[in-house]
């Protein structure tokens, strides 16, 4: 349901209908994230945002680098050209997309499990998957906890672009999140 709201927000932003669907949700140990993204040395793009509230942590939205020109094209209403250098405007549009997706997921989480979170300013990084994770894990001072992964597909006409949303809670806060999930399941009508 987070994806539904985000799709509406995005369609308004770009002025044409954009479909969005959640293709997969899972809990992943942090040491498996790099593998999940295609290996430690895989070059990826990530929109990074700090998250504050009942649970603090970091949101990372990963996109394969080869879809970035397409993604920017979709957002900025122009045809994409392959191997095109990203302009400042492109980078800004991709960050905005990250921000919209995150806002929607966080409000969906609030409706589901009553955990309130807001996100900070997005940054776009393009680097090795492991180097991005390395830095984020240092910030969170965690190494062997878990992340929540939500895979999302954006569609517009024949374009299909997949991004992966990761919520990495600060060390030791995942039990809090699990408790909230358990409570919302045990109390029918909350969702």
């Amino acid at each position, binding site marked *: 349901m987070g994806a539904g709201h985000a799709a509406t927000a995005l369609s308004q932003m770009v002025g044409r209908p954009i479909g969005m669907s959640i293709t997969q949700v899972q809990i992943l140990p942090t040491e498996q994230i790099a593998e999940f993204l295609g290996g430690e040395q895989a070059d990826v793009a990530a929109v990074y945002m700090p998250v504050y509230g009942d649970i603090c942590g970091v949101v990372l939205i990963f996109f394969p680098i080869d879809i970035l020109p397409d993604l920017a094209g979709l957002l900025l209403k122009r045809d994409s050209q392959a191997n095109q250098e990203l302009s400042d405007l492109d980078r800004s549009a991709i960050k905005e997309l990250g921000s919209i997706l995150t806002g929607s997921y966080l409000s969906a989480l609030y409706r589901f499990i009553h955990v309130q979170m807001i996100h900070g300013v997005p940054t776009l990084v393009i680097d090795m998957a492991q180097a991005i994770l390395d830095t984020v894990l*240092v910030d969170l001072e965690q190494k062997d906890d878990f992340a929540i992964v939500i895979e999302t597909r954006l569609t517009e006409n024949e374009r299909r672009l997949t991004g992966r949303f990761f919520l990495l809670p600060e060390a030791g806060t995942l039990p809090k999140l699990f408790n909230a999930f358990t409570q919302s399941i045990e109390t029918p009508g909350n969702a």
Partner: protein
Amino acid sequence: MPETDWPVGIAEMKTARSPDRLSAIGLGSCVGVAVWDEESGWGALAHVMLPAQNGLSRVPVRGKFADTAVEWLVAELVQKGVDQGRLKAKLVGGANMFNAIQYNPLPVGTRNVMACREELTKRGIPVLAEEVGGTKGRSILFLPQDGRLLIRSLNQPERWI
């Protein structure tokens, strides 16, 4: 016997003897501390996450902190029969990848590098070369036989230090 590459993951430490090699993939704000003795061919690599333990960690992981990791590196090599006075070091990493939103004048990558340097200097181990800071992640391959270190980053040529 063909040489083996030993991968050193985040907060890990390993020793190896030439012709074996040590590697670390995706150093972001973490620092790879490479220490070696050319004469015996023994070397060690740590993948340090944070400057100092300071009672910070819930679980004591020595490889995580600059102070405890450098102490371990030296102790392990001395135990292998290496003379501490012959040890030399190189440092790689400590990037500030999310620079744009971190207003901290001393981001963790920078503090990691400073702490590693200090711990090595304290023990009289010279830092012969380093590639630190910047905004790009790095992967490294370390050869204990002569201390050479190969560095790779995205969209940049490979280089040896």
